[in-house]
């Protein structure tokens, strides 16, 4: 019992060293969030004011066609982006895991877009998808006169064009995570499956995929977080257009903060975004806390020195 006592007496320097972290948490994270929530209940426009207008900013927010469209786009983008990244990334990882030649090169090729910024990604795809001079025009020149690929200028398809660019950028990340997961699978599984005569695709679908749960969960959370933050790629690729067709909430907030001087409205929007993230995270945090409690109990039970300490 003397160990904790000694620890505490010497930890003044440690506590002092953590002051920057505590200040960051209190001021830059918790404080700013609280302030934003407070401002969202005020009538602030260009400058923050201290009045209280209840939920009026929220009512304005959901009356705004642009915000509703932004949220719809976020939902479409989120579903398409996450599912496509998971599917493409998993497929690539499975195929690379078949002891192919040139594995290192293939991995490099599939992951390099992830090193590029979302701005560069958006600008490249804006150019590739340019209907007059890009992919569509080039394929037509090859003799396929009816070929049409003009998502980026179509009201109903622009958000899918943005999702396409984002999938290109991020699916390599899923591949890298999944490949690590696949490499962790026990060799004996394949022996057993061979002896039982189970077809390979069946093994992947019914056994490997469920075993990859943690990798998939990690990829899912990483992708979801980038969905809510999506901003750069839209600004670079379509600027939210054509019209309002590819507006997203993060851009709505920035525009209202910096350009339109609608601070109260922007704060209400960011509060809604915050609640969305928390709602997405809550079940996952719960599952993780549960798992780590279980793991902690197991570790203590199997390690007597840890149990004694």
């Amino acid at each position, binding site marked *: 019992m003397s160990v904790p006592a000694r620890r505490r007496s*010497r*930890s003044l*320097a440690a*506590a002092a*060293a*953590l002051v*920057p*972290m505590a200040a*960051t*948490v209190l*001021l*830059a*994270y918790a404080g*700013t*969030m609280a302030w934003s929530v407070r*401002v969202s209940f005020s009538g602030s426009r260009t400058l*923050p004011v201290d009045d209280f207008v209840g939920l009026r900013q929220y009512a304005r927010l959901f009356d705004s066609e642009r915000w509703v469209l932004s949220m719809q786009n976020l939902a479409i983008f989120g579903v398409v982006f996450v599912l496509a990244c998971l599917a493409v990334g998993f497929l690539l990882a499975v*195929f690379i895991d*078949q*002891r*192919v030649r040139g594995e290192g090169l293939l991995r*490099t090729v*599939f992951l*390099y877009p*992830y*090193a*590029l*910024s*979302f*701005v*560069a990604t958006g*600008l*490249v795809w804006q*150019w*590739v998808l340019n209907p007059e*001079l890009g*992919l569509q*025009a*080039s394929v037509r020149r090859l003799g396929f006169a009816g070929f049409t690929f003009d998502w980026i200028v179509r009201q109903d398809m622009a958000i899918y064009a943005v999702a396409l660019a984002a999938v*290109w950028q991020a699916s*390599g990340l899923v591949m890298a995570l999944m490949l690590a997961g696949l*490499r962790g699978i026990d060799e004996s599984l*394949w022996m057993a499956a*061979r002896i039982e005569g189970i077809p390979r695709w069946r093994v992947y679908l019914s056994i490997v995929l469920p075993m990859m749960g943690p990798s998939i969960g990690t*990829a899912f*959370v*990483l992708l979801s977080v980038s969905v809510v*933050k999506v*901003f750069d790629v839209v*600004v*670079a690729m379509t600027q939210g257009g054509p019209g309002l067709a590819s507006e997203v909430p*993060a851009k709505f907030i*920035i525009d209202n903060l910096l350009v339109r001087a609608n*601070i109260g409205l*922007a704060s209400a*929007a*960011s*509060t809604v975004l*915050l609640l969305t993230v928390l709602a997405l*995270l809550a079940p996952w945090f719960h599952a993780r806390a549960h798992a780590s409690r279980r793991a902690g109990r197991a570790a203590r039970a199997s390690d007597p020195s840890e149990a004694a300490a």
Partner: protein
Amino acid sequence: MTATTALPAPRRPRWPAPARVGLYVFLATAAFAFLLPLYVMVVTSIKPMDEIRLGNLFAWPVKVTLAPWAQAWTSACTGLACGGIRVGFMNSVAIVVPSTILSIALGALNGYALSFWRPRGAQAFFVVLLTGAFIPYQVMLFPLIRALAALGLFGTLPGVVLIHTLFGMPVMTLLFRNYYASVPHELFMAARIDGGGFWRIFVQLMLPMSLPIVVVAVIMQVTAIWNDFLVGLVFAGHDWLPMTVQLNNIINTTTGERLYNVNMAATLLTSLVPLAVYLVSGRWFVRGIAAGAVKG
């Protein structure tokens, strides 16, 4: 991976020959699709505009020219200013270097204190900090703008560096905390018994041991901060716009004829630093992803 390849028996049944061909066809097609945008960028950037106007995106240029690269670097216009993207390059370097050093130093210090000293209540702060990693920056932007303005740091280099350090803290702290968690506690206790204090153990024992994770952290932070758009756009004012913001301004605010070759040269120039980091670092880059994924 070399260990697996060295195994005498194939670890799973070989594919029948036709299926194996299909496997390679699939992978080659996928690789082709992934490389296509890069190829288009390079080809477009070395073509004269009249060849681009023909509308053949994939054709190799008849006349290769490096003029678009020179123009992108020295004289491309963002609105009225025509100084090229080199201004942004210098700004990005000036932002990335101190932000990387500062965020890693703080992350290492936090991770060390959290792993070995565990002051009271620190764990609670750490949990809130990690949750902060998931929060969209939009929620924090306006109060941070006001705070920086009050401190006289808005639109200055120290202001931008400070914001990058704040936003980088969760992942950096987590990275080092997890790394130090794998260091045997006996080592720390031995240093304590030898009379080492908080700072001495950190500087003389833990930091020298941290080289591998520092490399991973440098890769992560250089890539992330170089590629940042939002912080630069919001906090950099007019004088410290990073390369990404300048690139977007060059391409998306140009009036008159759009010079696609110059645009693509500028995009490639902006991407050179993270691409070089990626190609040189190889496996370390993937380690960074895996480490960042622990966050998830």
